[in-house]
């Protein structure tokens, strides 16, 4: 029981990150039609830029202590958005005619480009990264009948959950109530229809790429204290983000968030069983094949209206 609760308290913040990653991946997939396999890798470069900026602030003595992190984060986020827009403008817009398989290989090529850049400009070493909320963990201890319960909750996870929640809610609001959100959804559902109402779909695609990679950078900055900063730091997060998007069925953006939460919890729950320790990722990946085959529309996809 205690182990289970503990699994959930660790799993949910972790899963929220997978979910946000998946959200961006699903967003690009829905609007531009590309499954971006370089998603986490370009975010990784943005995290490196953030880290370098922190160090630069330190060295230059402009900002002191923890404030340097907050001063550097906007730089990292902007770099993420810029990467997204550049990828779309310089590459993806020009290769829209190719098959899905070719498109996928192109993003794998981008993955190599980002990994190579990280190794070349920075280094393959593991660097530590500051937490948003440093400090000792919260410990909840049950009393009375629940005496056995003792759950540890990392302080930084609080920040992770709050940020993920705020982002999810504001994304939901943007998608539902703003013009650009409506345009993004419309473009994903019918590109010709979107153009017919005067939406510049090329511009929407650039915005989507920028937004999605900005989001991925947020995830990267939140993950970095745990994984530390190195060229493959976001590989698993990216793969599990894609998995989350698969669970969400790609057709619904927030399905990816639910999918991510489920994966995050599942990962920790599998961990509880000693015999399965270490196999959690493998098990999730094998499960995902089954989902792909038997429920390709995802398990969190909302009921779609029939298509006429």
């Amino acid at each position, binding site marked *: 029981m205690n182990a289970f609760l503990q699994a959930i308290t660790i799993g949910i913040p972790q899963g929220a990150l997978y979910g946000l990653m998946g959200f961006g991946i699903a967003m690009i997939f829905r609007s531009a039609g590309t499954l971006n396999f370089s998603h986490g890798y370009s975010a990784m470069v943005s995290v490196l830029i953030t880290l370098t900026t922190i160090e630069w602030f330190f060295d230059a003595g402009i900002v002191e202590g923890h404030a340097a992190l907050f001063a550097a984060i906007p730089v990292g986020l902007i770099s993420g958005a810029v990467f997204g827009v550049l990828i779309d403008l310089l590459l993806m817009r020009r*290769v829209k005619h190719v098959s899905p398989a070719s498109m*996928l290989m*192109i993003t*794998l*090529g981008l993955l190599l480009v980002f990994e190579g*850049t990280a190794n*070349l400009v920075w280094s*393959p070493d593991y660097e530590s990264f500051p937490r948003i909320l440093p400090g000792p963990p919260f410990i909840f201890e049950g009393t009375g009948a629940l005496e056995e319960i003792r759950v540890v909750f990392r302080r930084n996870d609080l920040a992770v959950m709050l940020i993920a929640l705020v982002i999810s809610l504001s994304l939901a609001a943007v998608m539902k109530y703003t013009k650009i959100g409506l345009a993004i959804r419309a473009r994903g559902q019918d590109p010709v229809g979107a153009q017919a109402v005067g939406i510049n779909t090329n511009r929407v695609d650039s915005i989507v790429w920028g937004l999605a990679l900005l989001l991925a950078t947020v995830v990267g900055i939140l993950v970095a204290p745990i994984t530390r900063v190195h060229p493959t730091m976001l590989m698993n997060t990216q793969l599990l983000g894609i998995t989350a998007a698969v669970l969400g069925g790609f057709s619904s953006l927030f399905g990816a968030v639910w999918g991510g939460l489920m994966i995050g919890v599942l990962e920790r729950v599998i961990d509880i069983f000693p015999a399965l*320790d270490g196999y959690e990722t*493998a098990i999730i990946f094998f499960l995902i094949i089954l989902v792909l085959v038997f429920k390709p529309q995802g398990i969190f996809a909302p009921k779609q209206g029939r298509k006429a």
Partner: protein
Amino acid sequence: MRRTVFLALAIVASGVLAYLLTGGTYALGSLSLVMVWAIAGMGMVIIIGNTGQLSLGHAAFMGIGAYSTAMFIEALPGVYPGMLLGTLVGLAIAVVFALLIGLPALRLRGYYLAIATIAFGVGVEQAIRAVPFPNPVFNIPHVLGGVPAGYMRDITTFFLIAAIFLVFFTIGRVILQSPFGVKFRMIRDSEVAARSYGTNLTRNKLQAFVISAVFCAIAGSLFAVTQGVLQPRTFGLMAAIDLLLIVIIGGAIMLEGGLIGSFIIVGLPALVLEEIAPAGSLTLIYGVLLIVFVVALPSGIATGLVLVWHRKLQPPYMAAIRFVHKLLPVRGNTVVTKSGTRMFYTEKGEGSPLLYLHGNTGSHQWFREVMDVPGYRTIAVDLVNFGRSDRVEVAGDIDAYADHVSDFIESLDIGPCYLVGHSLGAGVAMSLAMRHPKKVRRLVLVDPAPIDGMELDDDFYALIRTIRNSYRGLRSSIARSMGTRAKDTRLAKRLSREALLMNEEGFIKHAKALASLDLRDRARGFKTPTLVVHGGMDPIVSEEQSRRTAEALGAELTVVDGVGHALPIEDPEHFKEVVAGFDVA
């Protein structure tokens, strides 16, 4: 077979070259590794390039092969029992996994198949990582442990791996050329079309998936017993991407692409680049290369080379053959006709003059075996624009060709002569006999160009282009027109080289001239005694066409059974009998 031999020579040559350049056998080890990856690469050529299923999970099959081999070596006494059994068990496990994963996953397409296979690949890697091996890196004994480490071992390993590679290359070739391979490619090109031909999509995709998994598992086992240590991440996502790079850059259609790609992706870094390139730059470059190849050269290097060979290098190759062939001495004479044109001919015997006119892409050589007709002075001439006679500007003008023959008859003072024309030469002979009747005493037309024009198929010009731009295409076309003697490769070779002497414009213009030929009007009041001889199995001119020619000329028609388009070559004795017999009658 030719490709296998060629490849074997190339491998040995590269080994020697590597030894000479580096002055040591270290490079041979790198080349062995290249061939190990190339075996896996050929598996990818089968599943990606020939079946069109983008799998990113095949590195896992390498991992399965490698770890199975390593575990059995550790568990069993001695080295070879474990090595052999481990490889076989690894193979079996790979097949089982390929079936288990392929059966559901191959129903998916595009992105979904890629995600499923990547999930499989990373899942296997993570599973291997999680297994608590007592000795996680395994110090695996070398496959040639008996040979002391050093140059001897490097060399023998190189040849052993090369032999294994060539075996799998041959197996791959056989598979891809078999009905299986045809079905794979049908699925790649159009699943709808493949299904309408009655292909069982799932079964055939699964076959390709399993075959490629076997290739990868073998490569994994070989990797283990040549490299000695294993790490799970060797077979992770990066290996999957490496395999992809190998087929995309090497070329996904031809098996050779696996070797070329492996050399670029595995070999070049190991041999040179790792020394000189800063860390990370290689990954960066390969990323850019992957994008560039997918966008600009999706067929990869191997197929690209073949295309370059056909489009760019065939014409100079054929020009070289022509140049050398022209240098060879040949018996015969040249006469300059009154128009100043040089015409080449050979002759034999004494008696009344008998003049042979050859067909399209031909020369006097087509009559080499029928020169001795008793009682005749036989003369075989190269028409203008053919063989060793001059080239004239009016390629494809049958009447002009006839006028040059008329001049030739005057120059040798052999008119009126007994004229025998074959195919296009028969068209020239008709034109000559109609417009210069005094120069022709009698006329024999062998499988003649139809008097009312030849019918050309829609794909004819594509065929002509192949013949014109490919020496092989030319040879097979010549062989086809040799009818029952098509198998005589020496003769086919000689006649193909003669054909190269033809004015290249003739390839298209002669065909056009034969298609638009119409001598029916001129045939009215034609008086020259004429015989039309038709080969019963002629694939080029039909018996019906020869009958129409004969009727228009008021000529006899003889059909010779059992021969094709080339009686003078296929049955010289019978040809001579026919020719001599008609003159007597």
